[in-house]
């Protein structure tokens, strides 16, 4: 599904990613953990194609295709979804209208007609039930005046609507109380299949109790310094990141 080779990226003069190697297969859940400033969100943004970051070395492949010259919107059309750590507000544009536009733009890119209104409504009903979202919420302006939890739940709702191949959840657990966390995690679990993959970026082990990863990677100073199974996450919870930082120095 996703293959990253020796990826280096910088913003302005600052090198943030310093040689990332990562392979994610269909059906897998990967967790990327690491201290603040280790490059987790940058990695997510680079996979999504944010132009602010300059790739100085290495490649990102999606299903064998090099994404080098692919625009963010085309990456989205190919099935990459990023759940933002800080979702932006778009005043005056309802969640429904935003989703309708997003879905139809993707369909247009694939040479399909707009989704008929009837099917769209059905899809919205289905997915909002899955994430226990009040329908009234969908007519509100996108993220405007949403609580932290509502914003994150809205991100996962969008993921459900767009049915991506590769979903990257960037600190989706931050700002969520325990009930919201459970709802969001349940949603992600229900959407998981053998054909798609999920990358969960998080500081804490808490979310991984609900979304159980097949692999855990620790990112430090722009590199993956350790990979393992879900037990690694527990170990990190217990010992913190410092032992790894020391280990890499050695």
């Amino acid at each position, binding site marked *: 599904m996703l293959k990253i080779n020796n990826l280096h990226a910088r913003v302005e003069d600052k090198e943030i990613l310093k040689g990332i190697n990562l392979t994610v297969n269909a059906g897998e859940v990967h967790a990327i953990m690491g201290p603040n400033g280790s490059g987790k969100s940058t990695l997510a943004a680079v996979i999504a194609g944010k132009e602010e970051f300059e790739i100085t070395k290495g490649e990102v492949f999606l299903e064998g295709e090099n994404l080098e010259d692919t625009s963010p919107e085309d990456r989205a059309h190919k099935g990459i979804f990023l759940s933002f750590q800080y979702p932006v507000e778009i005043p005056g544009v309802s969640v429904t209208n935003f989703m309708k536009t997003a879905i139809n733009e993707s369909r247009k890119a694939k040479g399909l007609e707009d989704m008929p209104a009837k099917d769209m409504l059905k899809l919205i009903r289905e997915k909002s039930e899955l994430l226990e979202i009040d329908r009234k919420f969908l007519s509100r302006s996108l993220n405007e005046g949403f609580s932290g939890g509502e914003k994150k739940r809205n991100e996962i709702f*969008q993921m459900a609507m767009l049915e991506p191949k590769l979903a990257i959840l960037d600190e989706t657990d931050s700002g969520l109380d325990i009930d919201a966390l459970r709802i969001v995690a349940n949603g992600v679990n229900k959407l998981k299949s053998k054909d798609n993959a999920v990358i969960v970026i998080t500081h804490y082990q808490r979310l991984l109790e609900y979304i159980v990863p097949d692999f855990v990677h620790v990112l430090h100073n722009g590199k993956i310094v350790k990979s393992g199974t879900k037990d690694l996450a527990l170990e990190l919870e217990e010992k913190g990141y410092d032992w790894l930082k020391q280990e890499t120095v050695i």
Partner: protein
Amino acid sequence: MAYTEEELKKELETKEYEYGFYTDIESDTFPNGLNEEIVIAISKKKEEPEWMTLWRLQSFKIWKDMVEPEWANVKYKKPDFQAISYYSAPNKKPKYESLDEVDPELLDTFKKLGISLDEQKKLAGVAVDIVMDSVSVATTFKKTLAEKGIIFCSISEAIKEHPELVKKYIGSVVPQKDNFYAALNSAVFSDGSFCYIPKGVRCPMELSTYFRINQAGTGQFERTLVIADEGSYVSYLEGCTAPSRDENQLHAAVVELIALDDAEIKYSTVQNWFPGNKEGQGGVFNFVTKRGLCEKNAKISWTQVETGSAVTWKYPSCILKGDNSIGEFYSIAVTNNYQQADTGTKMIHLGKNTRSTIISKGISAGKSQNSYRGLVQVNSRAENARNFSQCDSLLMGNECGAHTFPYIEVKNKSAQIEHEATTSKIGEDQIFYCNQRGINTEKAIALIVNGFSKEVLNKLPMEFAVEAQKLLEISLEGSVG
């Protein structure tokens, strides 16, 4: 030639001008320049009664002594008023034989707006075969209106057929001496629309210049007069979302609305005159005076979507004369490239318990300058007047400008005035967020702009709103990149 009023009257009474020394201006386009002879000739050409000719001449006299205003936040080379021809016969001859001859860029825009082939032909000035459908629509339309006693015709026709109404109301809201362009328009107006809704009648359909049969050649000095008699209601649509490639650079229209006791007028405009090219060359100067008068319990609501013209100078206003009357102004003004707009409204509160609402949305892109200028005036006798104003500006890029000039004059202590203003910029984060969801930058901007303009778009009649939305999208194409 200096006339006194009396001399002039006498001369006109003898009708010498019909056969006399004016005959040399018989051609379809008058020579450049403006003088009394030209004014008289325009009036004669339109077969107007004497009172109208006199009114025009009076206007011309006033105009001659006025100077072009300079207070607006716009810069342009002033037109040479003696280098303009003030009358052209309505263009009956089609400009083109088929659509193949029309500028492909224009056709492309038509296509994006979803305009039908027949309409495209009509708008571009291509010869159209008789379209049974549109003829029958227009006929049914006229019949329905006539049954209700509604008069809807060109102002030239109204001057001849309904002189008592025109005489009573023309210049009653926008006097000849109101301003430089209004005086000019009063002297030389080419044509325009007239509408009268009788007492207690609710006009059953949106009145639109589109349906008026002899709409061709309203020209650069348009004059519109809408009268809603006591307890009546009318919704009037002006303009067209299709780009108007007019060769006349100067447009100075006057629109007067009269809402008598308990009447309501809703006036919606979509204006898309040629804004000039990307380098800022060419383009229409649009200097418009629009004003409405509200009597007791009456309501006037202006809604405008302005995307065109190189220079816009326009302030649709309400005089809230009657007690409990209501004035509303909802506006979206888009400027791109080198466009300049100075637009807003005036709400003059004279009566008791009068209310006004102003919602202005300015969108600036490219190197354009977009100004809101508004006046809220509460007279000493206007007890309990209320106003709410909201001016939002949206900037795209770093080279455009948004300006707000709100004037508030309150002479009565019971007034409640609220003013809110915001300025925002389309952020890269917003664009990337949309991109990530599969929405390209162009479409993302359209979405954000539509969201920003929603409160105003919602005030437009349904079919107009859809077109206006598309128009916003097209106007901002290529503004980011």
